[in-house]
């Protein structure tokens, strides 16, 4: 059971990839990319977590209280906000693709090949 977080992280990565590969709609595909990213959240979160320790916020508790790893949380935090803007960019590309090709099905996009 102690390995459940890692198993979940691996599962999120794989299922997200499956979604990307099998997608029939670019918006769906982009959301699946987001699922892959949540895999890294779960991984970083579990690495930073320490049993029996509190959140690294010392407003109401003594500064010497053992706390979980703030570094991993800091990495996740910035990543979440960056994710949403990268998503905005990807969605913008999808909107433009629809405008130019009239479809969002990757199987029907034939602008480039060879």
């Amino acid at each position: 059971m102690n390995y459940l977080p890692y198993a979940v992280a691996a599962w999120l990565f794989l299922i997200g990839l499956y979604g990307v590969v099998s997608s029939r709609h670019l918006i769906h595909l982009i959301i699946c990319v987001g699922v892959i990213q949540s895999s890294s959240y779960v991984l970083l979160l579990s690495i930073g977590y320490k049993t029996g320790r509190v959140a690294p916020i010392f407003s109401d508790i003594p500064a010497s209280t053992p706390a979980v790893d703030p570094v991993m949380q800091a990495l996740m935090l910035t990543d979440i906000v960056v994710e949403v803007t990268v998503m905005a960019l990807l969605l913008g590309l999808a909107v433009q693709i629809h405008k130019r090709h009239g479809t969002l099905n990757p199987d029907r996009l034939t602008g480039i090949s060879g």
Partner: protein
Amino acid sequence: MTEKILQYLILVFVAAGATGVVFTRNPTSQAIVVSFYGLILAILFFVFQAPDVALSQIVVGALALPLMILLALARIKKQGPKS
């Protein structure tokens, strides 16, 4: 002990939620499912002692991202099947 059980339970929810997101093939309903998934992730962060990240995940994952998806979809719908 209860904390541990809660953590594992939510981890299972996360795995199930992600699976749900991937297998919801209709993007509009997917935006709603993603919103729920974002919320579950936020709860996960909370029970893993990461309130900062949880707050950020609530506003981004459960609100901003689904909104953006819906806006993009509305935009695409307006364009019609072939321009």
